[in-house]
């Protein structure tokens, strides 16, 4: 058996969860994190991040639409996945995915976006002609009341949805962490810290993604970056990252200090097969370095251009680090045998159903969806600009 070291149970030759299952927590993490950033403005009145409020919501939606795709591609019988809605097994953590997903998509994100955009949609509907008019009319559900009273109610409902949305975002991603954390057969996964670590790493990745998108889109649209906004986002990214890193280190130190029966096996794995992806990429490059970079911007007075560059570098490293973290959880958790006596290797294929190619397509897809959403629902939407577009 190629790539096997020591003894593994005969049925453990094949890794059960592939790179597609790595994408699943990565993508839902981006969704939850982007939403938390949006809620900063809405619920906690952090007005500095207002320029990214709508962008964050649309980013969350674009990624949420794609989130079930890697799971669907992975199933042996995707045509039966609807059974999870009809005959869910209530004891199963995974059975709840469909409900949590639908709730978050329809009960939180779509509703919040709709209420927030309603005025813009009505204005576009009324000023457009032809197919565009029909389209925007349909988007407003043909409700054209944008009187101050109606808008006040919209705002109230939107705020309420965001308040409900925060625990929902925690639920969405904490739940993904629970799927792994509750597998007692796997000592690499089985820890009650897993959902909490997932939530904070989600916030980190989502905030970093929206920050990068905001910078990229400003550059593309040739408009100046609101540095107050960017500095605030970077500050929150820094705080969230410190909490996330502390939790991960708590988990690590706890494992090292307790040194249970699985420790020798996991320790050997981290020092050999997972060394590059865990120690080098996740911890050093993807966590410690961006934290140091962000800390520098908090402590040293730097020029605007220097801060922008540091934020871009820290954001990109953060995303690489969080992706590595998902990889190390999902793939790392399958590289050692449950006999604790041996190790196997993950051989990623390319153009197969669960290969690298579909993984790349799935990762590109949210950006395509986001590009469409940005056209249909421009997030830059102060009314002056909207009026300018119309003219």
């Amino acid at each position: 058996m190629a790539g096997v070291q020591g003894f593994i149970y005969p049925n453990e030759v094949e890794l059960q969860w592939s790179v597609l299952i790595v994408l699943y927590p990565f993508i839902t993490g981006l969704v939850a994190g982007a939403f938390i950033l949006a809620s900063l403005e809405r619920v906690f009145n952090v007005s500095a991040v207002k320029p990214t409020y709508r962008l964050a919501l649309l980013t969350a939606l674009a990624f949420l639409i794609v989130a079930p795709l890697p799971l669907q591609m992975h199933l042996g019988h995707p045509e039966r996945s609807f059974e999870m809605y009809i005959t869910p097994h209530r004891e199963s953590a995974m059975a709840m995915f469909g409900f949590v997903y639908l709730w978050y998509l329809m009960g939180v994100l779509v509703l919040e976006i709709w209420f927030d955009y309603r005025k813009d949609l009505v204005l576009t509907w009324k000023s457009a002609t032809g197919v565009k008019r029909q389209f925007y009319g349909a988007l407003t559900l043909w409700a054209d009341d944008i009187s101050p009273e109606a808008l006040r109610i919209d705002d109230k409902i939107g705020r309420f949805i965001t308040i409900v949305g925060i625990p929902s975002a925690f639920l969405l991603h904490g739940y993904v962490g629970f799927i792994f954390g509750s597998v007692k057969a796997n000592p690499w996964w089985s820890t009650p810290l897993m959902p909490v670590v997932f939530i904070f790493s989600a916030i980190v990745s989502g905030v970093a993604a929206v920050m990068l998108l905001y910078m990229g889109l400003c550059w593309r649209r040739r408009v100046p970056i609101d540095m107050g906004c960017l500095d605030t986002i970077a500050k929150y990214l820094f705080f969230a990252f410190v909490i996330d890193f502390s939790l991960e280190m708590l988990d690590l130190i706890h494992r090292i200090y307790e040194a249970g029966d699985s420790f020798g096996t996991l320790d050997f794995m981290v020092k050999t097969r997972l060394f590059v992806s865990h120690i080098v990429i996740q911890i050093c490059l993807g966590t410690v370095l961006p934290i140091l970079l962000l800390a520098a911007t908090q402590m040293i007075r730097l020029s605007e251009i220097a801060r922008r560059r540091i934020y871009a570098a820290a954001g990109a490293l953060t995303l690489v680090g969080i992706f590595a973290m998902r990889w190390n959880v999902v793939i790392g958790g399958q590289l050692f045998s449950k006999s604790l006596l041996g190790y196997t290797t993950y051989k990623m294929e390319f153009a197969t159903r669960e290969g690298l190619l579909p993984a790349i397509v799935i990762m590109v897809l949210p950006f395509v969806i986001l590009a469409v959403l940005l056209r249909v629902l421009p997030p830059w939407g102060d009314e002056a600009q909207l009026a300018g577009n119309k003219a």
Partner: protein
Amino acid sequence: MDQDRRGFLQDAGKFILLTGAATIAWDFVVAGAPEQAPNYVATDHWWGMIIDIDKCIGSGNCVRACKAENDVPREEGCFRTWVERYRVDPDDLDHPLVDSPDGGYDGFPEIDRPGDGLKVFFVPKLCNQCADSPCTQVCPVGATFESPDGVVLVDKTRCLGCRYCVQACPYGCRYIDPRTHTVDKCTLCYHRITKGLTAACCEVCPTGARQLVDLKNPEDPVHQFIREHKIHVLKPDLATGAKVYYNGLDGAVR
């Protein structure tokens, strides 16, 4: 011969009836199928297995019989049961040398020489038919379940192939059938035991190391066996309610 018409009809009738019965019985013999067992009441049974480590000689009969009886693919990584060989150095108990070439399908090649000083023994493995099975707990659609007679089964017409149960099984007893893309595992030969037969692996074991047991049957010798031997289950710390009981299980076995 003095036989009236009445006597002739009676004899002919008996002959036809008996031939018919023999023909039906012969069909079963040829098909290798036991009679139907309409009187089987699931709740009257609670199935498990006893494995006597000291009796196992690593013949691989059980692995071959299981594959043949249950149409288990001959591919790598597809086993309902397998046998592991442990070689334990008394000076290094924490690092046993374990192998299971092709799951023990063809037995084990001799690799030790007298005087090596190793403790060598075989450990047959199969689904532990856990009463609190972590695998059935995680199935999102309930395609895998515990039957009322204590056997963990899979409904292949419902299995999504999500592989969560494979991850949840601490013993590595599940695999994905590459032909159906659904999960498969030991059923204790459910099609046999519900008809009064024993599991295929137990049937062919040359030393009687594996024995199907019915824990609800007061007449079953298992009760006496458990009373008189030091028995153990695999990974008891995981509290899965495993019902495969090992006699003489070494602490090195994982």
